[in-house]
């Protein structure tokens, strides 16, 4: 089997054509090859959710995805959430205003998951929010401020 393979992938709206080792994870591709270090690795086993990115509109674990699997895919990372003029995504702003992060290591994964949740379910209950983020681990916050930030975002979108 070839040790390297060529991929075409769109990341945060920019097209890339790269030759990558077949054993390279998507997380390492983003971080080491594209220098998008906003995506963090917490366990590299798909449990903690820190590395969550959006792939073709669905959240995915970049630690369990190989870079070669993204050939032809459209990827969004935390660096792609801001508007073109630099304005923070409403979810980023509400995480900030609700003190929904402490060390901030898990935050990129939570933002991606939360944005996907509200796209699929614009008016979730608190329990639905907790269910949706239960695949993302945070060791600092006790989750309450994160839940509040997401509920606030839902209110804002409905308004």
């Amino acid at each position: 089997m070839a040790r390297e393979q060529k991929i075409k992938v769109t990341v945060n709206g920019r097209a890339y054509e790269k030759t990558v080792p077949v054993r390279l994870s998507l997380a390492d591709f983003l971080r080491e090859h594209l220098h998008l270090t906003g995506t963090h690795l917490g366990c590299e086993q798909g449990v903690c959710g820190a590395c969550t990115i959006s792939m073709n509109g669905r959240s995915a674990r970049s630690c369990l995805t190989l870079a070669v699997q993204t050939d032809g895919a459209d990827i969004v990372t935390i660096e792609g959430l801001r508007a073109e003029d630099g304005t923070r995504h409403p979810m980023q702003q509400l995480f900030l205003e609700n003190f929904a992060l402490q060390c901030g290591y898990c935050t990129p994964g939570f933002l991606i998951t939360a944005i996907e949740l509200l796209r699929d379910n614009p008016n979730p209950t608190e329990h639905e929010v907790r269910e949706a983020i239960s695949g993302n681990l945070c060791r600092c916050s006790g989750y309450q401020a994160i839940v509040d930030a997401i509920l606030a975002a839902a209110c804002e979108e409905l308004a």
Partner: protein
Amino acid sequence: MSDTRFVNQRMVGSSVIPDEAIPLVEGDGRFLNDIKLPGMYHVAFLRSQHAHARLNSVDASEARKLPGVIKVLTGKELLGKVDPFRSMPNRFSGGESVQHWLAVDKVRFCGEAICAVVAEDRATAEDAVDLINVDYEPLPVVTDPRLGEQDDSPLVHDACPNNYLIKREYQRGDVDEVFRNAHLVVKRKFRIGRKQALCLEGRGCVAGYRENTFALTLWISHQLPYVVRHYLAKHLRLPEIEVRVIVPHTGGGFGQKASIYPEEFVCAFLALGLRRPVKWVEDRLENMVASTHARDQYIELEIAADRDGRILALSSDIWVDVGAYSTYLWSAGMEPLQTAGLMPGPYMIEAMRYRTRGVATNKTPVGPYRAVGRPSASASLELLIDDMARRLKLDPVQVRLRNLIPIEAMPYRNANNLVHDNVNYVPCLKLSVVKSEYERQRTEQREARPNGKLRGIGVACFAELTGLGTSTAVGPGTLLQPGRDAATLRLETSGVLTIAAALPSQGQRIMTAMRQVASDELGIKLEDITSITNDTATAPYGFGTFASRTAVFGSGAVIQAARELRKRMLALGAHLLQVPVEDLTIANSVIQTVDRSKSITLREMAEKSYFSAKDIPPELNQGFEVTSFYDPKFGSFAAGAHIVVVDVDPKTGHVEIVRYVASEDVGTIINPAVVEGQIIGGIAQGIGEALLEELVYDEAGQPRTVTLADYLIPSALEIPRIELHHANTPSAALGGFKGCGEGSIIGALGAVACAISDALSRRGGDIYEFPATPERVLKGLGVLPSDG
């Protein structure tokens, strides 16, 4: 201009949105693993597969041949070149432990580093690790501290008889006499499992060679940059001035990043030898076996009480499984000594006795983790107080109110010589009772629940000793006795105030807190204040962030420095405006006369001070840079009372938290939203301790919980909404501040444990081991056979 021009809005007490969080929410955080230097090599460690074994040979010849491998370093190559970590001799220490950075003749726990491989990339380094052949000769293992202290036990260290790394006995008052004459004596056993701080980001470092003027620059994910610098220089035999330590954004600390470990020191050695930068970042498996563990205690305790439920004496026997080495700098005494000494908590206990030991085993060393020693101290005593209440047919709240140290009795020196003052133990409990509708909860408890669930109510009161000054030891017998830290305040020529202090944040927003305090002291607008906390090249000397001390020390040092800086600013302002100093005030970054007739911005004044010094008398122009060391002398007790309602399913053993009410006294609050985040986050970790988290080892000393799928921390579904209330009273420290980083985890373990015990008691059951896994709950109900 509005009237507020004269009166700065008080920043202390405001939930100021922290600027320091903006890069983190935008994906611009710079964590350790995000650092890349030109020509940087990568390091991976070969780790022991055995809990205890002699190393007959280590053959790295195949690894060295792999293309891309630069170097394989063994423990023998370090001998004589660097100094290993030796346990500190002190009056409570048992035998000595010596920890080589890379194992030399023996390995003493699974995961101990044996070789370091340097390669062009991490994947190659890991490939090379697999090519190293180690001939292990397995040795008998110690895995239980109660067996490890026996005379016939195998030894972890030859120089450590009975495997005691620490042992202490203490008595105050005639404890035997009190027990003999008491109306009631109740006893209890308590076991808390082995834990992990579980920072989402593991440890790691980049060691740079000849960056700027420093021989060695170490970027490290750590809580104590200056301590790392001092000991790095000492152990590498370098002049300290040649070493710079920088802490990047840090993905959680919780004490796990407060110790000194071999791996980062090996990387520093390698960078100096190879004259190239090297990087090592812990993966999760390494973090589970090679970063310090916590707790792991067996406690037997008893109390003597009078007929009204007043505790007359406390006696405890404590065994802590402290792992294979005395954790460097903090020693093996952290858990054994703090659990024993701080067990009386917020209660008036006049006579006490304890026997405590830290027993070496063939497991990962135990080090500091949030609220060292105290969750188990508190939970075991709270459970026993409930036993006493049941025996005396008293309500758990009533009996606690009879024993809490009341404000009228303060200052109160307890049986362990700690002075309790300015702390609201009783008001915290009363507030939680009211807010939780405690009486109604008790009434509802008696009603039948759907599916036969058992309802339990837990009450826990705790004391948290915070912000320890030089007169209060952080732990008797440890080498580090921190107690004073510095802040430097500098008014830049731009009029911006820079605060520098070596108090790095792992999310506590210490930079924002110090800015808020400085803003109030100096009348400088918050947006005109910046802060640096992570670099030994720019910050004045400080111990760092741990033990709920940072807000107390950072704020105290800022207040002291600000008072001097304010004097200097007003003196120069008076000269420049030609008015008496007494007529001046500072608000919104402007110095002006009280009648507003004359003013000068701090920016103009700073520019004049630096660039037009010839026009100013030198005695009025001493420079707008002040460093002040702050020592609060004593610690400040923070407090809390948590009330928890649980439903236990007697068929599955599942515990659901139905209601969680917490009232806390954390002194004067700087930033309420930040403080609430600390408390709720601590409660979540305490719920994890009580219900989920346990590192399991088998009888051969093999770790069975090395992934996040095995070691469960709470998700958003296991944590209920926490109802938080405050009964704050200012401390005696400058600004009235107390620490608030750890208390909540203490209260959570006790309150949840008591709630479960209360639920099980409804069927005549009880529980002695935590976490309260479904299996243990069912054993406690007699549904499953108990271990005996």
